[in-house]
């Protein structure tokens, strides 16, 4: 059975690339363009993995992560960011309970590879 993934990113083009790449890897992706929509979707549907951009308009990725943790402490959340070497953000994400961290400065295929390795380690089904 394939994993259901929710891709949360405010840029359509970025989201689309993720969705297409994930489909090729036999995941079942859904998308949300902001934190609020993402939380509504997470309440309604059961996802295996959330791919969450740190920089979102309005509610930030970190805020969304915090909210998710209030109701779903075991849901796998992987953060994505364009800020490669920001230890502070990484530390915060870990503190709030993300299970992985992907930097957008790698090539998409490498990103998917590291996504897969996090999923393998963190998501049990």
């Amino acid at each position: 059975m394939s994993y259901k993934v929710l891709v949360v990113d405010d840029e359509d083009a970025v989201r689309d690339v993720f969705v297409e790449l994930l489909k090729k890897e036999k995941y079942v992706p859904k998308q949300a363009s902001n934190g609020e929509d993402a939380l509504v979707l997470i309440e309604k549907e059961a996802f295996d993995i959330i791919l969450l951009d740190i920089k979102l308009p309005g509610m930030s990725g970190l805020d969304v992560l915090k909210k998710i943790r209030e109701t779903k402490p075991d849901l796998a959340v992987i953060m994505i960011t364009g800020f490669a070497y920001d230890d502070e953000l990484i530390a915060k994400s870990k503190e709030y309970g993300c299970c992985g961290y992907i930097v957008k400065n790698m090539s998409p295929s490498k990103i998917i590879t590291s996504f897969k390795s996090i999923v393998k380690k963190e998501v049990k089904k």
Partner: protein
Amino acid sequence: MVEQWPSKPYMWVRFPSLACAKEVRRDPAAKMLLRGRWDKLYTWVRDPSPARSKTKKIMDIFKKFTTGFVSTVIDKADVFIVYLDKSKNVSICNTKVESLTSRNKEEIIGNAWFDALYHDHNSISTGRQMFQAIIDDSAKYKRPNNFESLFTDKENKERLISWSITPILSESEDLEGMLLIGNDITELVERQNSFRKIDETLKDIFSNIREYAIYVVNLDGKITYFGMGSEVMFGWQKKEIIFKQARLLHPKDESEPTLSYILEQVAQFGEYETEVEMLKKDGRAFPVILTITRFLDSQGRLTGYIFIAKDITERKKLEYQVIQSEKLAAIGQLVAGITHDINNPLFVISGRLEIMLQEKKLDKELKKNLMILNEQAERIKKLVDQLLKFSRKSTPKFITLNVNEVIENILPLLAYHKLSVANINILKNLQKDISLVKGDLNQLQEVFINLCINAYQAMSEGGSLAIKTCNLPNRYVEVRISDTGKGIPEENLKNIFMPFFSTKKEGTGLGLSICYNIIKSHSGTIEIDSEVNKGTTFIIRFPFVQD
């Protein structure tokens, strides 16, 4: 019997001639008085004849005006006036004298002078005997004398009084009496002493100022005073430069403002302060803050200029470093913002390219073009990654480490960087008991690799790369990475740590600025020393681990 010599050396006797002074010294009584302390006996030589002719006039005046207006004037005078008869009893005295004794004028007049003066609180009999001897001398030899001694006044305060003793002679040159005029010189002497003290203190202050060069230039532009601090700062000895032109201390191709312009300003406005370059004796230029003020004499006439120079070489260096790191911080922030925004579109481009390249039925020509696009996108990504590294906000993970080990570990990595050019020797000189430092292993490796790569690149024709470590006495560990390569021209050295500054064809100009940032976050310093065609040395210093 002499009781006590006064503690203060105010016992000056003024004799009319040297012969007279010698005579007093020979006197056994005086000898006993002075108890061999001849150094306390001062002698003035004076020609007594004009004074004697004056005494006649004074006598006449006295005879004429013993009552009325002149008597009032004498009484109110702010000097002690006493007239003694032949047997040293007081005939006339003014009110001022009352301040020296507890007796009033009426009680003094008609009585023996010394009993009145010394009868109670003026118990220093040394003074009494001396005063008596002086008056006796004036009486015996009919010559004026001067005498200075300490007295205690009614309020029990010590006063220093200078007495002039004038014998009054009759027409037939017989002694009639003695006129004593006393001046209270306590404050005057105190003031003189305090001036002397101020003078000495000033001298001490000036010889102790070494941070500042103080010198004086006269109106002809010649140096007339050259203080200790000036010798230290300029390297000139006082005797070498005194009366030479002050221009010597300024560069020949005078940069603005010129010395003559400065002096014009000072003459007009009284003071001028400016930052200029000045010259040491050996010709080296150095930056100073120069303050020049008018040098006026006591009449307020301009006689020259006082120069005060402060060497600001160290401050300039520091200022430069601060500006540099501020610039770097500003660029860092800018870069962080831009690179983040580049990352997203770049991700989309690369992502789309990859998706397209995964198509199986792709036209051969199109595939080739897509591959090229992908390669170029990769290049941008690498650059962005470097920019992100440069602007990284990451706090280094400090551990206690040995720089020697860090260096040993990177040397094999250099081979991996395909930089082990055939004819480059590596010379290691690592101090065995090198002190430990606090550092982030990955970051320090990055710095050393970066510097070694630079060294290799500077020696395309071969040479040697020397890596040296040592402990410095100021509790710093020093790492020197030197090459024997082409060197860096002086005009480029200034900008060497600036981001985007590069002389290499394929450089991003970020390598050294990343190194700079890393070393700074380690509380260390990085300096460069380079000479064209000789080589370059990077000097890095880290503080020891505190025990």
